[in-house]
């Protein structure tokens, strides 16, 4: 869908996802790295645990469908070459600290004067302006400052984040892709590009707002991880142990009770584990706000026993068959083995000739009938397309390339 567009990718970290999605959508994405390589190449996990900057699975994941060149923007030669590339580009995505590009003489105003149609997309921890614009952030800081951390965790332990890689920056990355395409679409009507500004903190506030600002704004209530439910002081189970892990299921009350709970009772009965108490309960009048802990425990007892007998995969399959909304707490292996993803041909095999193998990747994020989204090729090696871009496209001589290489420009 985005095949006429060229994107220059100056991001690092999870922000790399932004241009990857544009590449999957067909744009010509050029990842620009420092001659020493992007910091993301040092982030694990690694292919077969071989710790090597050409084997980072993190790098692989977020750089499909891109070509790669090296370029050092901190040299005068590098900046001049960049400006040449800007002339024929449509979009630049960057995640430097606010002001960094301005400091190099590559701020939006300069870029606009080189190419009035250029769309510059900037991703930063707190945005391009404001009292916190120079604050440093990593995922845990963004997650905390955005409000999602406060409401996540056990009451007797600190608030907790989602482990490993930065979810916050992934949200910002997709938002940046949206902003990029929005600005490109708008450019057709106005003839002008613009500067898109994405704050990681704001993306987290969006993630958290339903259980934070919405309750504060509406009724002055602060939900905490100690009391996550507005509606009941009772201990109710949502996470149930099963034979090989856990599943999530919520017993319903009120208007949805019969529609949600009865299918589970049907399923239990079909496996000779039905319970008369559950069947005979008056679900129309049952409410978690008015019942007792004893009753809740009595309801949960036979359900607990039932879930324990089956595996995650079995319960999902039975759930679909009987229309019970029980879902596995999936591990990465479970996701990998998902029946649904396989049936939809979701996974994509990408060749890694230098590894002598192909690796399976998450595929298209949407199934488009006319112009399919395609995860087209593996992440670039360092400087893999230097010759293609510098020599073939820009016409640099061999002498020039040697000089630039030795001067740490490329």
């Amino acid at each position, binding site marked *: 869908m*985005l095949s006429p567009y060229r994107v220059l990718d100056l991001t690092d970290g999870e922000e790399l996802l932004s241009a990857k999605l544009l590449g999957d959508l067909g744009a010509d994405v050029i990842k620009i790295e420092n001659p020493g390589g992007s910091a993301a190449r040092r982030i694990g996990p690694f292919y077969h645990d071989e710790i090597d900057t050409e084997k980072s699975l993190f790098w692989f994941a977020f750089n499909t469908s891109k070509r790669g060149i090296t370029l050092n923007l901190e040299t005068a030669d590098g900046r001049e070459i960049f400006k040449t590339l800007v002339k024929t580009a449509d979009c630049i995505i960057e995640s430097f600290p606010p002001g960094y590009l301005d400091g190099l003489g590559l701020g939006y105003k300069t870029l606009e004067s080189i190419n009035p149609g250029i769309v510059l997309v900037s991703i930063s921890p707190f945005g391009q*302006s404001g009292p916190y614009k120079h604050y440093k952030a*990593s995922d845990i*800081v963004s997650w905390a400052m955005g409000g999602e951390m406060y409401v996540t965790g056990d009451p007797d332990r600190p608030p907790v984040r989602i482990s490993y890689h930065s979810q916050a920056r992934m949200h910002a990355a997709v938002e940046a892709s*949206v902003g990029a395409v929005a600005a490109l679409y708008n450019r057709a009507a106005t003839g002008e590009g613009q500067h898109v500004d994405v704050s990681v903190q704001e993306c987290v506030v969006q993630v958290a707002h339903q259980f934070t600002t919405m309750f504060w704004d509406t009724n002055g209530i602060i939900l905490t991880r100690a009391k996550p439910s507005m509606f009941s002081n009772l201990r109710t189970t949502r996470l149930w142990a099963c034979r090989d892990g856990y599943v999530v299921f919520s017993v319903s009350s009120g208007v949805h009770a019969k529609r949600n709970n009865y299918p589970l009772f049907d399923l239990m009965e079909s496996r000779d584990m039905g319970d008369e108490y559950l069947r005979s309960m008056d679900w129309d009048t049952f409410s978690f706000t008015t019942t007792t802990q004893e009753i809740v425990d009595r309801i949960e007892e036979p359900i607990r026993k039932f879930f324990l007998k089956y595996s995650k995969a079995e319960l999902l399959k039975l759930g679909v068959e009987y229309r019970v909304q029980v879902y596995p707490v999936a591990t990465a292996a479970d996701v990998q083995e998902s029946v649904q993803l396989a049936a939809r041909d979701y996974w994509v095999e990408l060749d890694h000739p230098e590894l002598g193998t192909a690796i399976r990747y*998450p595929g298209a994020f949407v199934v488009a009938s006319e112009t399919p989204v395609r995860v087209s090729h593996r992440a670039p090696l360092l400087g893999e397309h230097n010759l293609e871009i510098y020599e073939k496209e820009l016409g640099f001589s061999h002498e020039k390339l040697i000089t630039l290489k030795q001067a740490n420009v490329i």
Partner: protein
Amino acid sequence: MRKKLFEDIKVLDFTWAAAGPMATKVLSDYGAEVIKIENHRHPDGTRVGGPFKDNIPGLNRSACFNQWNTSKRSILLDLSQPKGLEVAKKLAAWADIAIENFSGGTVKRMGLGYEELKKVNPGIIMLSSCMMGQTGPYAAHPGVGPLLTALSGFNHITGWPDREPLGPSGAYTDFIGPRFTLLALLSALDLRRRTGKGQYLDLSQFETSVHFMAPVLLDSIVNNRTVDRIGNRLDYAAPHGAYRCWGEDRWCVIAVFTDKDWECFCEVIGNPPWTKEPQFGTLWARKQNEDELDRLVNEWTMNYAPEQVMEMMQSAGVAAGIVQNAQDLQERDPQLKHRHLFWKLNHPEAGEYTSLRPNFLVSKSPHELQRAPLLGEHNEYVLKEILKMSDDEIADLVVDGVLD
């Protein structure tokens, strides 16, 4: 006034609940004309669920609905009646985009599938967003965000290594889906602008969420490794975590990555003797003694409010923050104030309320949030101004109970 970003985009919006409306809200806040099809008998779940202003329920008082449906128009239409279906198709002829998020296959059964809409509007872009996609053995299975979050793998990697999986708070995947939905829609719009071709977009929220698990998934695919929860730890940083502060349930977060960070961190906390001990001298050493390190850091942070910790650390160039609660976000955070993330709106039934503006800003195009519509508020506007129906035609629909 600068042309609004999505000024000329027309959206026929069948979405309900969270993920769908949050996507069309970005379109409407940036100027698109979004017509929301509603129904008295089966109102949008978010109109029925709370929280409600002053805890008084009402179809026009729901905070969820009002926050997620700013700047949109609402028309009541009974799609189970042939005349209702007809009006919907007339709107499809008018629209650039039709979007729905019922469970897989539903909209086709209703007679509003892509093939049907294409007949009245060959260039229409239609997007269906549901949990698991329109095809496959689990396509029609209902579910909600918190369940998909577990299915996608996020719950398993949230929480403590010695405890059961926790999961992020709320319907986490409901906040991933809309971003991808917008990306798909805008890309398709741009393609159509260039080629005249519309298309059908089958978006599975599961398939979008999996992208946020990509590195962990590749570890499983390539290395056969299934990683578990690690609390607030990070391989290549220490100290790294949430630390207790002065005040009730007040916490800060601190993340020290480089030697320089460590040096500045020690400076801020007054260079106590323990920081000079060899077991804290290098990153690797700190990782081997992290429980003790965290205990010592907590001893310091406990004496300060999180605001103070953040200010002191950030002044020294160390990444640190407040674990902000709802009140911090909406009333105290100076950055969010400066950025005008929260818009105050006035609603005839729910009174004053706050909604978030879109997460991306563009330098030359303004956005404007208008309050969410009352149920069926724009029946007349849509039928008269957009569909150019006569008073008689409208009266017929009323009599037949189509505008309910």
